[in-house]
């Protein structure tokens, strides 16, 4: 389950893309974890995430979750929920981490993002490093913006063909970049897609079409 690891982008672009994940450990501390995970989601939600979700329920862009998403995610939450929040600045992540630390919930917390930035705000315990994409890379999309957008959903539910189609629609004036990003975000089932970053990338992609 390495779905937040493979995000592509320049260092500057990744400065606007951090994912905070909270979960219990199966067989260790999952019994009775639901209220602690719920508390963590409330903390995440306080600091302006651009997307939230539970890997087992869906994201705030899921149909039916757009109104009062936090309440709905909390209602459906359980001991094995895996809550995510996506942030566009490290300062917000720092506030989330500080509050999670103070709350002492005992749940595992993982931050996906630039290591040099993250290690400046809290001591790292274990890391998952990304060494890049190996193998037949000629099978990847031609435009780097498509790759950057698609890898914001590690489960590969944002299709490269859909990204190109939506970019064409933006170019023709049928939809706005924001609307395109929202459709893309609705494909990502766990809420780790960054729609704010996607808007910028769609605008860049449109320039190339």
């Amino acid at each position, binding site marked *: 389950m390495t779905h937040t690891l493979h995000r592509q982008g320049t260092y500057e672009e990744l400065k606007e893309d951090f994912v905070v994940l909270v979960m219990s450990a199966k067989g260790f501390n999952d019994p009775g974890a639901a209220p602690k995970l719920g508390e963590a989601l409330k903390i995440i939600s306080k600091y302006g995430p651009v997307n939230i979700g539970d890997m087992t329920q869906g994201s705030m862009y899921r149909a039916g979750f757009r109104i009062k998403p936090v309440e709905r995610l909390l209602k459906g939450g359980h001991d094995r929920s895996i809550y995510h929040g996506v942030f566009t600045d490290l300062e917000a992540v720092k506030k989330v981490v500080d509050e999670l630390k103070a709350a002492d919930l005992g749940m595992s*917390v993982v931050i996906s993002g630039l290591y040099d930035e993250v290690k400046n705000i809290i001591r790292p315990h274990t*890391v998952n490093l990304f060494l890049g994409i190996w193998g037949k890379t000629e099978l990847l999309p031609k435009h780097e913006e498509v790759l950057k957008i698609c890898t914001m959903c590690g489960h590969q539910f944002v299709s490269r063909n859909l990204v190109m189609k939506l970019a064409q629609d933006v170019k023709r004036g049928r939809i706005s970049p924001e609307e395109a990003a929202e459709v893309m975000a609705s494909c990502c089932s766990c809420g780790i897609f960054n729609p704010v970053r996607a808007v910028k990338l769609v605008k860049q992609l449109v320039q190339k079409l």
Partner: protein
Amino acid sequence: MYINPDRCVACTHCVPYCPTGAIQIVSEGGRNYAKVDDDRCVECWICYRVARCPKDAIEPTPPEKMPFVRRLKFFFASATAVWPETGMAGRGTEEMKTNDVTGRFRFGEIGFALDMGRPTGVGVRVSDVEKVCKAIAPYVTFEIENPVTKLLIDPKTGEVRNPELRNVYLLSAVVEAKTSKELAPKVLEIVRDVSKEVNTVISVGLVSRVKPDGEPEAYEVLRQVGIEAKPNMKVNIGLGKPFVGWE
């Protein structure tokens, strides 16, 4: 996945949503309709779940009624479905995300997370998963809770358990294994070599504990083989309890 030709009006709405490009518009008997390529379809259900056909022509088969190969595709594509065979959800395990509690990875150990077929819907045949697993098997211990290990390969040899599955096309498969810090450079070199022989892409990840000075232990391995890590990582920040400790 099945698209009912009697309902489909070939509006093409669903076509771009498919991550693997498995939906095509075909002409038959004087009319056009959308058809799913069974080989290319990975049962991710994005067409059904998100595209939302205006004519309700997309008709998924519930997983419990699927033949085994299609169920295999479904569970390797789903982010959340719980495998009946293993009781686990998702394509991989908790790996390092709960390592502050489980202690699955210790100092002196390096974990491998080889995401085959990712990103962008490239997908992977089981034969290519087998190629990688066979190559690294002598030097690693495969993660026993991982679906690839549980369902596809023999963890001792890396060979596929059922040869009839070799040609099955999956959205992705995460090979999870670990080895000692001393053997890790050799494993990385093997993965680098075998990645040139597979007809897919591999998103390569390493798991490592972090030394008190903030340096991931895996950097020692990477220096030996001349490979640099990307600047973004997944970072477990050690808030879980009962805590395994910093050492």
